[in-house]
């Protein structure tokens, strides 16, 4: 029995565009155990969504090219699976909550129909065959679990008739309805109001605990993942720069980027406007040869420009990819 539910190994992903090749993902490594909850933090354009889409193999190929890397799900290589196996995994093992509930729900189908199709396909995959009545019952159950009032009437509504918070909750319901082993939540609640977002995140946390599913919670906001995950991966310009337990990350961030990020967040207790991190994301067309954060890093050394820093284990499940902590070039 493999130790990890999901194991992304040295993943590289490029995109071919007119101007050349965008080298987006630059050696991504991510491991998650069954039942574990991890967060993936990174700002816009760092490659988190690309990574997630690679897991489900929903990247458009071309223009995407995967020059090297493996993604193992329960020990099996996702890229080597045939369509049947892949679909089976998609139907019953991995589900995804997308960032924008408007875009994730089909506007011309009623909520009930969308739930029905998901439940049907996932249960068929597991070998069960449910009657229409049973599917309807399960739909109502799952809607109640996401605290949606008047579940029965809701089945007959179109997504456009509902508020943003309700739509997001339906997306969560759909993700749970195919109760799998891994839930990927891409910025859930980003487009929602603070009070509703709070409810939604809490809901996800409770459900994940109840069902024992693993979860990858993606966000650009540090505060979102606090209280919900065990470990956090920090991503910058296509590489993982730091991995740590959540409390350790906030109390003792090691990587200069993580430190800069934490400092950039305005504090409720005051302290003025933080300066932020100077500079901007590198061009993926011609990224720096070594550490991609080097151009913006105040601690950059000559070796940082030459080659990608190795991941150094600082103990206590805290790893960082930075020459400041030693390590030979990869």
């Amino acid at each position: 029995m493999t130790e990890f539910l999901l194991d992304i190994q040295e993943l590289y992903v490029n995109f071919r565009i007119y101007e050349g090749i965008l080298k987006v993902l630059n050696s991504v490594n991510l491991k998650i155990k069954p039942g574990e909850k991890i967060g993936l933090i990174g700002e816009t354009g760092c490659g988190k969504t690309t990574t997630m889409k690679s897991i489900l193999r929903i990247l458009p190929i071309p223009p995407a090219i995967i020059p090297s890397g493996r993604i193992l799900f329960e020990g099996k290589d996702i890229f080597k699976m045939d369509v049947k196996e892949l679909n089976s995994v998609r139907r019953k093992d991995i589900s995804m909550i997308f960032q924008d509930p408007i875009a994730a729900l089909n506007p011309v189908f009623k909520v009930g129909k969308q739930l029905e199709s998901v439940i049907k396909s996932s249960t068929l995959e597991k070998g069960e065959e449910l009657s229409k009545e049973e599917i309807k019952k399960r739909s109502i159950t799952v809607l109640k679990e996401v605290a949606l009032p008047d579940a029965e009437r809701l089945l007959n509504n179109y997504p456009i008739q509902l508020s943003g918070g309700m739509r997001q909750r339906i997306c969560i319901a759909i993700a749970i309805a195919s109760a799998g082993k891994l839930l990927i939540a891409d910025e859930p609640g980003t487009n929602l109001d603070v009070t509703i977002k709070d409810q939604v995140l809490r809901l996800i946390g409770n459900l994940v605990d109840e069902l024992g599913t693993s979860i990858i919670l993606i966000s650009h906001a540090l505060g979102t993942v606090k209280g919900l995950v065990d470990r956090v991966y920090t991503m910058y310009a296509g590489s993982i720069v730091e991995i740590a337990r959540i409390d350790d990350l906030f109390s003792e961030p090691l990587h200069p980027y993580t430190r800069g990020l934490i400092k950039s967040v305005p504090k409720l207790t005051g302290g003025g406007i933080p300066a932020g991190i100077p500079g901007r994301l590198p061009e993926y067309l011609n990224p720096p040869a070594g550490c991609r954060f080097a151009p913006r890093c105040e601690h950059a050394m000559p070796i940082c420009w030459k080659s990608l820093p190795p991941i150094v284990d600082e103990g206590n499940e805290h790893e960082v990819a930075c020459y400041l902590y030693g390590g030979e070039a990869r």
Partner: protein
Amino acid sequence: MEKEKIKKGWYKFSRNKLSIIGLISVTCIIFIALLANVIAPYPKHAGWFTDFDNAKKSPNLRNIFGTDPFGRDVLSRTMFGFRYSLMMAVVVLIIIVPIGTILGLVAGYYNNTWIDTVIMRVTDIFLAVPSLLMAMMVCALLRPSAFNAMFAMSMSWWPWYTRLIYGLGSSLKNEYFIQSAEIMGASTSHILFREILPNCLAQLFTKMTLEVGWIILAGATLSFLGLGAQPPTPDLGTMVADGYTLLPEYWWISIFPGIAIVFTILGFNLMGDGLRDLLSVEEF
């Protein structure tokens, strides 16, 4: 900077090989149309000319496309036909595009007011009358001529441009950059022509290119019915009319102009597709 843009534009345009075929076809047509009286073997045949001894001769070395019932060379007349067809398309577009666009801009910007209602309902009325019927009415009221046919076609074609620009304009009007211009105190004409219109040009040009073929077909239809260009003008539609009673025996008289019409529509359509690709925003 500019050179890069052109190179990239060409790359986007030429990704579909058919677009290149379209471009070549259109270039040929324009070339022929412009230089018809230089390259046509018998330029005089495009006007008043008869040679009944040579009438209805099938394609041969002297007349590559054969001759029509009046003894005129079909090839030369077809070449001139391109000229008249293109000219008609250009005239119609020159009339309908400015009128349709301005009406669309105004209606779109003032949408949900009486201005919108008046303009769009008038547009609807014109759209409701079948174009052919409209053309026939106009030609019945005035005498049939190439110019009147163009006028008639303009009357039925402009609403499509109003609709297009209305749709684009009314959605653009809520964008922040328009609000910003309003807040600053920009004049309405500035907002319509300098802010909204530039954002509509891509779709406008694509539409115009794709429509040239259809305008030519409509014009040819009218001429075929005798409502457009009058003899001896070598309009492609008239030429088809000249020969259709003689089918299938004297096929070359109608078929060659017919092929010319198809070739024109195809060429512009393919080029229009390429133009659409060229102007599209690339996302992966």
